[in-house]
């Protein structure tokens, strides 16, 4: 049992982080062409509307919630010290999590029933969709069955996660958790490790740089103005057009 716990809550997180880092960087460098959201809206737009919006916004907010609780555990507990605020937070989180579940279910349904979408579906698409759907179901189950998750996450799991990042894993709190929560944690690491092998990589290239970019882009093979300028150093690099 000790071995199992050590593997799942110490080894697996590191395996998952290393796989994620090496895998996604390698994929970006070597097969940049395959970094794409592979949108299928062009083939089917209506069902996609409900599924995609509910899922994406839902999962984003839920993920942000987990991240904030991890980063600011004290603030979360202070927020939760007032029962009204606690209940508002928990209800909102559950609703949003559930909406992402509904959205994802609609997307899986669309992916398996629409003949056009099936053509652009590969095995990893189904694997990752099922993994996430199980993860979200577990999450909703935990939200209902093991109340005030935002509080116990902040007090018990944040220290565990932090201990992993400082290379001093402390697993006592996790081992004492109920089985459902343990599966949810393991599931998170598994999904994390799967990212470089699936279309999920698209969130890594989310286009935030668009906000600061000027609208128009002109690229020269080589800027003649600069090449003629004796102050231009030789070690500057050409624009990346290829």
């Amino acid at each position: 049992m000790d071995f199992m716990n050590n593997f799942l809550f110490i080894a697996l997180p590191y395996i998952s982080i290393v796989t994620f880092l090496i895998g996604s960087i390698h994929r970006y460098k070597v097969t940049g062409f395959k970094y794409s959201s592979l949108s299928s809206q062009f083939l089917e737009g209506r069902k996609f509307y409900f599924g995609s919006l509910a899922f994406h916004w839902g999962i984003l907010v839920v993920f942000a919630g987990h991240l904030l609780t991890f980063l600011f555990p004290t603030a979360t507990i202070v927020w939760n010290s007032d029962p009204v605020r606690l209940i508002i937070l928990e209800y909102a989180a559950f609703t949003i999590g559930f909406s992402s579940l509904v959205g994802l279910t609609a997307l899986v349904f669309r992916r398996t029933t629409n003949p056009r979408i099936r053509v652009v579906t590969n095995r990893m698409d189904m694997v990752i969709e099922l993994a996430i759907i199980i993860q979200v179901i577990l999450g909703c189950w935990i939200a209902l069955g093991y109340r005030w998750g935002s509080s116990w996450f902040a007090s018990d799991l944040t220290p565990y996660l932090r201990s992993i990042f400082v290379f001093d894993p402390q697993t006592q709190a996790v081992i004492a958790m109920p089985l459902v929560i343990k599966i949810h944690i393991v599931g998170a690491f598994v999904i994390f490790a799967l990212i470089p092998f699936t279309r999920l990589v698209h969130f890594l290239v989310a286009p935030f740089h668009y906000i600061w970019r000027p609208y128009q882009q002109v690229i020269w093979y080589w800027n003649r103005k600069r090449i003629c300028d004796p102050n231009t150093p030789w070690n500057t690099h050409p624009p990346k057009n290829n």
Partner: protein
Amino acid sequence: MDIRSQISMVFHLDKCIGCHTCSVACKNIWTDRKGAEYMWWNNVETKPGTGYPTKWEDQGIYHGGWEKNGDGISLRGAGKRKGLLNIFHNPSLPVIDDYYEPFTYKYLDLIESAAGDDQPTARPVSMITGKPIDIKMGPNWDDDLSGTPDYARNDPNLKKLSAAEQEAMFQLERMAFFYLPRICNHCLNPACVASCPSGAIYKRGEDGVVLINQNVCRAWRMCVTACPYKKSYYNWHTGKSEKCILCYPRIEAGYAPACMHSCVGRIRYLGVILYDADRIHEVASASEGELINRHMDILVDPFDPTVIASAKKNGIADSTIQAAQNSPTYKFVKEWGLALPLHAEFRTLPMLFYVPPLLPVMATVKEVRNRKQTEKLGPISKVWDNDWLYDTSTEEIWGTIDQARFPLKYLANMFSAGDESKIKERLKKLMAVRIYRRWKTVGDITEKKAMDALREVGYTPEIADNVYYLTSLAKFDDRFVIPAAHREHAIEMLEFTGDKKGSTGFGFKEDTMKRGL
């Protein structure tokens, strides 16, 4: 002044015979691939008609292009705020059914079917799913279908025409249509570039070709929405957008693009135009009535010494400047004032210009002989009249322009942002050259009349001769003046030469940088 060079195009619509050779040349070279079957980087539409994708000109549906927004402009259906908020579902994205579902036929069934009582048939199958489909639409589905209720009468350009004007266009005996070949306009203010969240789309500095970097495209699909001409296409198989590349590998080598090279009617002209990049934003933000004039203004005179000096400062090669001076497109667009951009009101400053069609539009019109009976039948009914003549008379010099078979308003909606006078001016010039040539070759017109016609449009006989030559007699090298890329620059298109200095040539197979490490 920031002078840049742009490869620009002129399509002479009077000469287009609608043979689709250009489309097929393009398809065979570039889009005969999985996921690209439905794409026609070059397509030829029948006007009036709904086009491809259906009703692409109606930005009430597709939300493409720029719109005026106070002093400036903003993207209608994309942009930083709308684009990022709608990234999970783009509400203005056309789906494949707006183009058509690509299909083929199961030809093998004709050969391999078991013997039976019935002839085997080749059933149509979808090229997406591979399953049998009922074909709803295909390439050029509305080809030559002027007057039809589903296509011609749904043309978005008819919007500002009165019901009577529309009806007049589609009376059986008066019906006319012309062809509108379209490729990417390689705009000066491209909406696709501005809309791309990944920054995958860019305009090449050297020749203004607009390209999509396939390695950077992430299928956020905003370019498809933003391009008002719907010339950016989403490849559903690769998850990348694609568009016309103006055959840049050919252009760099000095060859004409495939669509232009193969053009049977020789309607296409391609050449360099120098423009002032500093003023793009200002021009794109001009009021609708001013747009075309201002667009013409930033296309600068390649003989002007200050322009040449500024161009050289930007590193534009002498061969390019020379090509700009010989450019057939500059002549059509600026010198002779014959060509107009398509839908200037989209504010992308397209660099593909059209010489508006004269023939199908002109050449009417005789009084209906039995007018009384016509009135009795009512305005909607078709009236047969044996006296219809293809009237090319030159009695009244400009008479036929005002009695054109299409209301000028229709052409104006397409080519001059609704300004009829600009269309009329161009048609008059075309007509004047025609009258001048008729005096020269047929001789049934007096010299005075021909000269009057030219004078009125501001042409000298010399200009008229040049227009005639470039329109009717021009050889390949007159129609396509392409400055090929310089050999000494060729390596710079791919590599940074500074990095490679000393690493090739005689000596080492290993990268010299690694020696000793």
